[in-house]
């Protein structure tokens, strides 16, 4: 029973953090090897635990037989769930905080994803940051980040989950602001942290509300409470909506996504680790963790779908017009997260499967981008081009990743994105339809901007200065290693009934009845439509960028008419009408304007607004108002003292008169009193 040792997985990076911080500098490889060893061990342990969990689940589903025939689970066997924990502290009354682990299909999957990608990033960073003065500090942070992500995944108690959640936030703040010398990085890191922290407010309110309703912080307690019913529906919706705000903040969904592109200011391995595979998926993981709760609150699920749909389209459009390669990938991540969030409002497996596959090929794309940037010494695609011949390994792995992202059939992206569209189609209703339509449109846009990126970077002549060369093995090895899952990972969840019992959906199922109730099937029509749109996107972009990748038409909007005429012989009406005019020239700039001016402006001005409010409150309210009152009190004492002084006029007889008046009054009092 290896899953008993599952708590070792987060413990390993924690130990490595301590070792690196205290003895890092003295070590031969300045701390890097400690991080590597820890993550490798964690990966091995995750594989073992995953194997155990998945085989347990697969065993049950196999016994049931192919999904769809609704049979009772044999002997009432339950999906794999292991809960261990020790009471961290009593909080008063009967409330306690449990430091424990909750291992089930979802946790095992996340273990695999996080430790694999983290290991790749560790290996990659050894090469990428070789000559950086704060090399050891970087690896300490990487280990700390991995620890907090794994803690988030394994937590059995909402408070411990919140601890991991905020720790991940702080690590992203420190990692994004790794080169804190120049102001741009500082602003980016603070913006990232504050926007996610704004989301965290929602999460704190959600956690507190759920715990308040069910009297316990433990996840199992909350889920049992929901299963038992007898709670106020409105309050549950409020709590889950608050948590959605938290997820939106962390996973950079629609309103709070403005921090992600700026977060590219950090080193590329940071972007790969944090903004591709792990941190941003925390929001999606949170929703998946409390999926039964969301099932009980349809309103919350509807919001999830709407937010996801809007994000995937809007982010896709933004990716279209970016010149910075990492920004393109960042927006693409936001878009794919939109898919996952939308998927989770319909089907548990669809959302998670896409999260799993996306983690691998997006990390691959980021690392590939890192290697290209490292070679061309610039982020901007305008200074790249023609790298296909010079950097073959990077090219082929980047191509594989892109095709997977575009969801070309055999590759991973197709299977996972297709699930989402099928789930949306089956759910039907407004939200289902919205997600389906926008999902298909998103697929097109994704294909378009990825192909544009491919051409701008790898086709044509090299536009930058200096002469790029293939990156060193330490950087290319992870690329190849990640390319394999990018291509093959899709096949673990083929939507055919025969193979379902053994496939991914059974591995990560949290409840056998749920798995039986909504099986994964293939919907040929949607699959074909999605692939067609994807191919159209690719062809459209190829048509535009094949001849003159350096003259990126997106920048010379003025030349639009001239370029269009020369392409008139392109007979594919679809690419002209939709791809070039509507999508690229109208919607994209609008999206950019809306995102950068309106939303980013809102975030910026809210920051400055609060600062100004603070200043006004402090200057008037505090200093003049309350402090003024207190000082006024002191001053009034002085003033009245001065007035009283004048009574001593020196006129002795006046004093005597006052004396007699006193006598008079006393006499009256005694006389009347008696």
């Amino acid at each position: 029973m290896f899953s008993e040792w599952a708590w070792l997985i987060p413990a390993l990076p924690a130990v490595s953090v301590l070792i690196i911080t205290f003895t890092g500098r003295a070590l031969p490889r300045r701390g890097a090897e400690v991080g590597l060893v820890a993550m490798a061990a964690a990966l091995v342990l995750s594989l073992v635990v995953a194997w155990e969990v998945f085989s347990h689940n697969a065993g049950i589903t196999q016994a049931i037989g192919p999904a769809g025939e609704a049979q009772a689970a044999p002997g009432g066997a339950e999906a794999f769930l292991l809960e261990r924990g020790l009471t961290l502290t009593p909080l008063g009354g009967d409330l306690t905080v449990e430091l424990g682990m909750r291992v089930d299909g979802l946790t095992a999957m996340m273990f695999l994803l996080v430790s694999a990608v983290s290991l790749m990033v560790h290996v990659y960073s050894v090469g990428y940051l070789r000559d950086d003065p704060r090399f050891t500090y970087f690896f300490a942070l990487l280990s700390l980040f991995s620890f907090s992500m794994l803690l988030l995944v394994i937590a059995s108690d909402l408070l411990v989950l919140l601890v991991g959640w905020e720790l991940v936030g702080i690590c992203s703040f420190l990692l994004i602001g790794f080169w804190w010398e120049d102001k741009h990085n500082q602003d980016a890191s603070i913006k990232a942290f504050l926007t996610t922290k704004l989301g965290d407010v929602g999460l704190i309110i959600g956690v507190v509300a759920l715990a308040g309703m069910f009297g316990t912080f433990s996840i199992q307690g909350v889920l049992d409470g929901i299963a038992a019913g007898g709670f106020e529906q409105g309050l549950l919706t409020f709590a889950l909506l608050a948590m959605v705000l938290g997820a939106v903040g962390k996973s950079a969904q629609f309103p709070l996504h403005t921090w992600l592109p700026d977060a590219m200011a950090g080193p590329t391995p940071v972007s790969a680790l944090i903004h591709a595979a792990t941190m941003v998926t925390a929001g999606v993981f949170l929703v998946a963790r409390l999926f039964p709760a969301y099932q009980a609150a349809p309103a919350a699920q509807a919001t999830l779908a709407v937010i996801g749909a809007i994000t995937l389209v809007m982010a896709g459009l933004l990716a279209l017009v970016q010149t910075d390669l990492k920004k393109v990938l960042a927006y693409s991540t936001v878009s794919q997260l939109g898919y996952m969030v939308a998927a989770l409002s319909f089907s548990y497996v669809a959302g998670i499967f896409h999260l799993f596959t996306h983690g691998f090929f997006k990390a691959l794309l980021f690392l590939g981008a890192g290697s290209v940037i490292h070679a061309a010494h610039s982020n901007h695609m305008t200074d790249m081009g023609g790298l296909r011949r010079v950097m073959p390994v990077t090219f082929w792995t980047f191509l594989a990743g892109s095709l997977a992202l575009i969801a070309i059939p055999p590759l991973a992206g197709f299977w996972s994105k297709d699930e989402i569209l099928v789930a949306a189609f089956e759910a039907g209703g407004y939200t289902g339809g919205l997600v389906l339509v926008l999902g298909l449109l998103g697929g097109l846009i994704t294909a378009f901007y990825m192909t544009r990126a491919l051409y701008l970077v790898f086709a044509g002549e090299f536009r930058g200065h200096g002469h790029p060369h293939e990156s060193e093995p330490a950087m290319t090895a992870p690329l190849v290693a990640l390319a394999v899952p990018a291509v093959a990972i899709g096949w673990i969840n083929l939507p055919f009934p025969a193979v379902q019992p053994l496939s991914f959906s059974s591995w990560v199922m949290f409840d056998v009845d749920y798995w039986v109730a909504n099986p994964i099937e293939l919907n040929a029509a949607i699959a074909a439509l999605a692939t067609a749109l994807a191919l159209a996107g690719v062809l459209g972009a190829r048509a535009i960028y094949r001849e003159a990748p350096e003259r990126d038409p997106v920048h010379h909007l003025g030349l639009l008419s001239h370029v269009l005429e020369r392409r008139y012989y392109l007979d594919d009406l679809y690419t002209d009408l939709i791809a070039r005019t509507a999508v690229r020239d109208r919607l994209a700039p609008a999206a950019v304007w809306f995102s950068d001016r309106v939303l980013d402006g809102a975030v910026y001005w809210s920051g400055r607004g609060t600062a100004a409010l603070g200043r006004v409150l402090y200057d008037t309210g505090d200093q003049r108002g309350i402090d003024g009152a207190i000082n006024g009190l002191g001053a009034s004492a002085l003033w009245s003292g001065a007035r009283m002084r004048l009574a001593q006029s020196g006129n002795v007889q006046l004093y005597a008169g006052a004396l007699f008046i006193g006598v008079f009054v006393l006499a009256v009092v005694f006389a009347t009193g008696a």
Partner: protein
Amino acid sequence: MWEASALTITVFLPLVGAALITLIPKAKEEAAKPVALGVSLLAFLLSLAILAGYYLGPPGGEGLAYQLRVDWIPVIDASYHVAIDGISLPLFVLSYLLTFLCAVYTFHHLEEPGRPKAFLSLMLLLQTGMAGTFVAFDLVLFFVFWELVLVPMYFMIGIWGGPRREYAAVKFFLYTLFGSVFMLVAFIALYFAGPGTFDIVALQQAGAAGEFGLTFQRLAFLGIFLGLAVKVPMWPFHTWLPDAHTEAPTVGSVLLAGILLKMGTYGFVRIALPILPDAAVEYAPIIGALAVIAILYGALCCLAQTDLKRLIAFSSVGHMGFVMLGIATLTPVGVNAAIFGMIAHGIITGMLFFAVGSIKERYHSRAIADIGGGVLQTMPRMGAVLTFVAIASLGLPPLPGFWGEVVALYAAFNPAEALVDAGFLTFFRVLMVLGAIGTVLTAGYFLNMLQKVTMGTAPARWREADLSDVSAIEWGAWSPLLVMTVAIGLVPVLVFGITDPAVSAVLTALGA
């Protein structure tokens, strides 16, 4: 014998130390430092012994221990009644720890009029006052220690302070005195209305038995509230804090923020709530509202600060807001969160003031503009310590700040039944949401401060000035605090375990 006299010895040992120091001839002034260090260390060890005794020994962490009751003023039945229980123990030990660390810190760091003899004897006198307040179980004794604390702090600010020290010192003294006058009136009223005694335990039983009429309770609570609110400080009565902190010497600020503020909140838990339960229920929403205002107000004001110490002073207003929110809920969870918040704030803000004090000493100025950023470059270790403590202060999870705040918010979500019956449930939930928003504002101003102070490249003049990084003495003074911050954060049971039984015992009157 040790059982009865333990507290008295520990409380009055610093006083003896102070007297000892004054005897040192002027010529050998420097000798005062090792003596003070020795005395404060001995006192700290004694307090640890009491902690161990309380926990491992007979009382086993339940009820009052180390009780000693000697008639002091028989005619008004005011007795020298000292005891200790779960609520006052953590604060008691924290006060000794902070004083010991301050004694270490003053070895090399003493503001300009110097005169270590006077300073250290005042500090030890202050310690006696503070420790006494936490163990006093008699209203008169409590009030004596409460006032005793003002005098040394007044002189510390007044003599060793910054440019506007007289104003700040007088304001601090008079403001607190103004508040405590009302409190004294309330105490006397309690004496006459209650069973004719000043003993807190007896009054608590009387309060629980409902001997005090409601209107009387309202007035008495108002009096005590005014006295304590000024000390906490709660929102409208806070204007003395920024002045006192900016002008106080580093050690003064540490003790002021570390312990003195807690005497106010401790007063609520020990005196106001148990003795006047019905009034507590009626005042709870008001206290809750003021607390949340303090959280938001403090955070907003911090955004507008240009002076480093003033910024931290306002942050204390915000943090104490969370503590008061916890108390306002009148539930064991809330009060536990409040006490934890007190300990967390004491350690973290104490450390914050130490760090800022050292930075002020090196940069000779508190203004953020003068520092001009780049502390991580000029003094890497100091920058790292400041960043760590600032992040701890904004409530990063594994560190204690987080537990204090989130548990207080949880308590605010479902307050005591008495409050729910009075129809304040949704009101407290709104408070909870506003409090949660406060956390993001807190994060905002701390990061804003960090960006301006630690990040970026230091201006040329400071780069060449080769400022000395954290010295051995400073590490000595700070490492216990840093270690405790991490320890209590990771293992909150260290504090919750001690306070939980005592709190539920005290709050029985409120039917919590």
